[in-house]
Every structure is written in C-alpha cells, then in structure tokens.
C-alpha cells in the first residue's frame, strides 16, 4: 500500500479518536485562554463544553478503521467507561477552584485523555505512553496543591511511578521480545508458556497495579490523596484506577488463562491483600483524607475481584460497581472539600459541626454507601460483587474465589469501624474542646450539592436500571 493511501486512510480513521482529539484540542484551547484571561466562569465553560462535546462524539462513535484498530481497541464497555470518565471529569466543575484554573483544567483533561487511551490501548506502546501521560499529570497535580507537603508527596509519587514504569517497560520489552508484536489482541495462551514472558506479563500487570493502587503498589496513595488538591484527588481515585482496571481486564481476557493459572491466583492474592491492607490501614487513620484513601485502596481490591474473572459475564457487575464507586468517591471528596474549607482535617474535628445536620447527614449517607449498607448504591455494588464471586465459585469451584468472597465480606464489616468514625464524631461524640463555640456554616450551594449526591446514591439503589440503561443506551448507539 502506498504511503499516500495509508495517510488517507488514517485521516479517515481519525474520526475514530474524535472524542480524544476534542479533549486534547479543548485542553490546548483552555491553556491558551488561560494565558489571556483568568475569568473562572469562562474557563469552566470551555472545560465543560469540551467534555460535553467529547461525550457526544464518544457515544456517536463508529467502528474504527484498519490502522487505528491495530493500536486501539474498542468495544461497548470501553465506550461506557470513557463516558463515565468524561462525566466524572465534568463533575469536577462543582468543586470550587479559585486559583490556577486554566492549567488545572488543562491537566484534568489530559488525565481523562490519558485514561481513555489507557483503556483503549491495544498496542504495548500506547499502554506505556498513556500510563506515563496519566502519571505525569498526576505528579504535576499532586504538587499543584498550595501546601508544602504536596511537593514531598509529589516527588515520592514520582519515584514510585518511575520505578513502576521501569518495571513495566521491562515487562513490555520481554513480551515484545517473545511475541514479536505490540498488539495484545494477537495474544494466545501458547505464547505465554516460557518463563521470561511470564515475568514480562507479571511486570506489565505490576505497572498497571501502580495506577490502580493495588498492593504492593499502593503505598503512594495516602500521601498523595492527603496533599493533592481535593478535586484532583477525586479524579485520581476514579479515572486512572478504573482505566487501569479495564485495561487489566482486557489483558487477562486476551491471555485467556485458565482460572487456576498461577498468575490469576497471584493477582487474586494481591487483590485480597489489597482489601486487607486498605481496610486495616484505614483503621488507624485520623486524617479524613488518608482514611478515605485507604478505603479507596480497599475498593480497588474489591474491583480487582470483578476484573479477574474467567469470562466476560461479570462486566455488568464491574460496570455497576465502577459507576457507584465513581459517584461515591466524587461525593465523598466533595464533602471533604467543603469541610476542609472550614478547616476540618481530622476525624475528631467533625464534632465541631454538630449544627450542620444536613451536611453531616449527607456525609453519613455517603460513607454508609461506601461501607455498603442498603438502601444506598454502595450496597447494590457490593451485592453484585458478592454475587459474582459466588457465581465464579459455583462455575469454577475455585476455592480462591470463595476466599475472596469471605475476605470481602469481612473487610466490609471492618470498614464499618473506620467509615462510621466520622458520623460518630459528627453526631455522637461529646465535644469537649474549648473551641466548641467555633461555629461552622456551609454555603447553601454546597449543602444542595451534597444533598444531591446523597439522593443520587439513594436513587441509584432503588433504580439500578438507571446505570444499566445508560450502558445499554451506549451499546445501542454502537450497534
């Protein structure tokens, strides 16, 4: 084929990545606008329009052409998740942001783009690049807070990231060496018989683990979540993590290992370890953000259980859990943001907010949903998780999945210990400190938004179809 034809095809195929293109272009426009004006509303507007347009293109998308389909992979699930990411990105606008608007939103868009590419990647090269893109943005955003400890967290994060990416790169190199190809779609189980390539896959998985904050690559999480700007953290905890998990899921689907393969068992083991580490780590945290960050580590573990399945059957559970998780985390971090605005950082300080029943009540609902108690969306998510694990146990007879189920159940109980700490302080704890006259008032706007989040969690419990129909809507568009 002539080069000219190739280029022509590529041009034609560019519509395939239309939504990403829009995001990138929007990001650049935003950056340039930022140089001209600091008008917050305008920046938010551009940001929103970019995301909405991108969303539109995302769900409008047509099947990709020959060239791009080598590098990128696409299916309904990925489109759904891309939409989820875009929505999550869009909801960042509800977080107040006073300074550095243009750059911040630029990086947010970059984060979303990187995560979408991460999911879509079919080529090892794209995997690497997109993970690095996401990582770079994360390093920058971590230092983007205006606190001193942000830099420390940033540099540590970077060190972890560099090590992980080096490990992953070696893994990619090894895989490439054996398979002689970049494309994961051509993988067959036979290719993975030799030891070296298994090491390669393991290293690749480790690289993704880093993005998903899975044991033992979770260590950067608490410090980062603690010191990065809250709106950024809200997105960190959702978009790259889910992107990485979707990628992981595809990797394992393509590997098509038997469920009792040691790699699967190993990953499941790490998943359980993640749940345990996240849960127990959170028990001793007194800073709210650190606590939630450990909680989100545990959630990664739960999600990992849904990713490493022998077949595609459990994608609904995964999709549901992800959506609920997205909503819960956004909500939790939004409320934390509001509280931090009035200088509440540690759990025990919540006793200062006795007057603000609505806010504290909303927060309680959100936390309870994170634990997984009905009637909130978090429960349905847990229910799907447990159901899927049980079904896997029935299907494969794998004791590991049963153990996973039990670990999840007990972790759910244990998670109550720390999540309920905040309502405990907010409602029950007697406030002995001298500054009890310190009254806390929240703006009407933040109260309304927090309430909307809580109500959404309730509504999703009662109409779980909503999330499913969102997905099927997207699917229909594609078919």
């Amino acid at each position, binding site marked *: 084929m002539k*080069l000219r034809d*190739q*280029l022509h095809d*590529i041009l034609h195929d560019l519509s395939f*990545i239309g939504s990403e293109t829009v995001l*990138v272009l929007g990001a*650049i426009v935003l*950056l340039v606008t930022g140089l001209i004006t600091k008008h917050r509303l305008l920046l938010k507007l551009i940001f929103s329009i970019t995301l909405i347009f991108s969303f539109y293109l995302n769900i409008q998308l047509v099947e990709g052409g020959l*060239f*791009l389909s*080598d*590098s*990128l992979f696409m299916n309904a699930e990925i489109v759904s998740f891309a939409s989820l990411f875009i929505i999550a990105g869009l909801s960042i606008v509800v977080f107040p942001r006073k300074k*550095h608007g243009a*750059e911040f939103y*630029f*990086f947010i868009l*970059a984060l979303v*783009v990187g995560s979408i*590419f991460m999911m879509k990647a079919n*080529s090892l*090269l*794209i995997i690497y*690049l*997109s993970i*690095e*893109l996401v990582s*770079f*943005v994360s*390093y*920058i955003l971590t*230092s*983007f807070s205006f606190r001193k400890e942000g830099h420390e967290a940033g540099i540590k994060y970077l060190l972890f990231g560099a090590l992980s990416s080096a490990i992953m790169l070696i893994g990619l190199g090894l895989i490439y*060496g*054996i398979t*002689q190809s970049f494309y994961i779609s051509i993988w067959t189980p036979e290719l993975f018989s*030799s*030891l*070296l*390539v298994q*090491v390669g896959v393991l290293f690749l998985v480790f690289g993704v683990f880093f993005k998903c904050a899975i044991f033992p690559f979770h260590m950067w999480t608490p410090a980062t979540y603690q010191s990065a700007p809250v709106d950024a953290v809200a997105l960190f905890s959702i978009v790259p993590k889910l992107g990485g998990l979707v990628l992981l899921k595809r990797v394992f689907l393509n590997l098509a290992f038997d469920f009792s393969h040691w790699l699967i068992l190993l990953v499941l083991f790490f998943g359980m370890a993640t749940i345990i580490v996240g849960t127990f780590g959170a028990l001793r945290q007194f800073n709210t953000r650190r606590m939630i960050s450990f909680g989100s580590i545990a959630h990664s573990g739960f999600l990992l259980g849904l990713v490493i399945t022998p077949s595609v059957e459990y994608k609904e559970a995964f999709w549901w859990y992800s959506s609920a998780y997205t909503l819960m985390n956004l909500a939790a971090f939004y409320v934390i943001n509001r509280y931090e605005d009035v200088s509440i950082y540690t759990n025990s300080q919540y006793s200062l907010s006795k007057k603000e029943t609505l806010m504290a009540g909303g927060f309680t609902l959100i936390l309870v949903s994170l634990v997984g108690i009905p009637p909130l969306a978090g429960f349905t998510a847990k229910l799907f998780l447990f159901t899927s694990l049980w079904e896997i146990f029935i299907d494969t007879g794998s004791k590991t999945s049963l153990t996973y189920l039990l670990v999840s159940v007990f972790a759910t109980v244990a998670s109550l210990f720390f999540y309920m700490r905040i309502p405990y302080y907010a409602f029950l704890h007697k406030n002995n400190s001298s500054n009890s006259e310190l009254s806390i008032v929240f703006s009407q706007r933040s109260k309304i938004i927090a309430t909307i989040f809580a109500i959404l969690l309730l509504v999703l419990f009662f109409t779980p179809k909503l999330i499913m129909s969102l997905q099927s809507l997207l699917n229909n568009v594609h078919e």
Partner: protein
Amino acid sequence: MLAVQILIGLMIVLGVGIIVFSRNIIHAAYALSLALLGIAGVYVLLNAELLAVVQILIYAGGVVILLAFGVMMTHRLRGEKVLSGAKNQFPAAITAIAIFVILAHSISETNFPGNKVPKMNNQVEHIGVAFLTEHIVAFELIAFILLVALVGAAYLAKLAANE
C-alpha cells in the same frame, strides 16, 4: 568485534560502578554519561543506529546536563563537594542481587525464537514512516505528553520562583 564489545561492556560497568559506589553526585553524573555512551554503543552493536543517535543526543546531551543543572541549582557548589549518603545498603544489595539472579536465570532458561533480520539501509526512513502511519496515535500522544510535561514543569518551576 569482540574487542569493541568488551570495551563497551567495560565502559558501562565502569560507569555504573562509579554511580553505585561514589558518593559524589557530580562524579555520578559524569559516570552516568559514560554509561549512557556505552549503552549507545550497545545500540550500535544491535543495529539500532537511530536509537544510538537519539541516546547520545537526548540522554548524554540532555538528561545529564539537566541533572547537572539540577545539582547546581539545588546545591551550593562553591567550595564543597556535593555528597550523598547512603542507607539500607545491605538489604538493598541483597534485593538487587536477588533480582539480577532471578532475571538472569529466567533469561538463561528461555529459548528465543526467530531469526535476526538483516541490517536495514533505510532505517531512518522506515522509522519515520512508521511514526506517521502505524504509530500515528502514539506519535500524537507523545506530542501531547511533551506538551503536558512542558507546561507542568514550567508551571511548577514558576510556582517555585514565585514563592
């Protein structure tokens, strides 16, 4: 040929050795450039000339200078050596050696398939075309990454300068 290989190997080992054992950062930076040059030599031996050129240009020329700048900007160079202490040496050494042994073991256990392809004459052209066709997405992506990194680095540096 073998002599060249040995020479290159020695360069790398020497460079890495200095990095590992030296406490002086400036020395380490020079040693790094030595090692990187050695690695560039390896690339040449591996028929990857373009990569070798990129390595020398970007790494030896860019990264090392960047590091040197970093050292200079963060240390008072005049009069004193820029030393770095070391810690956890023993466990770290164990870990490092263990990893080396394991990797080496897996390498020795593996049979590598395929045949070496003959050296290509128009390597640069081939790569250039591949950038714009097969790897167009990656190419665009890395462009964006560069932008992000640039903006990020500049912005952070500016923040630092402002405070």
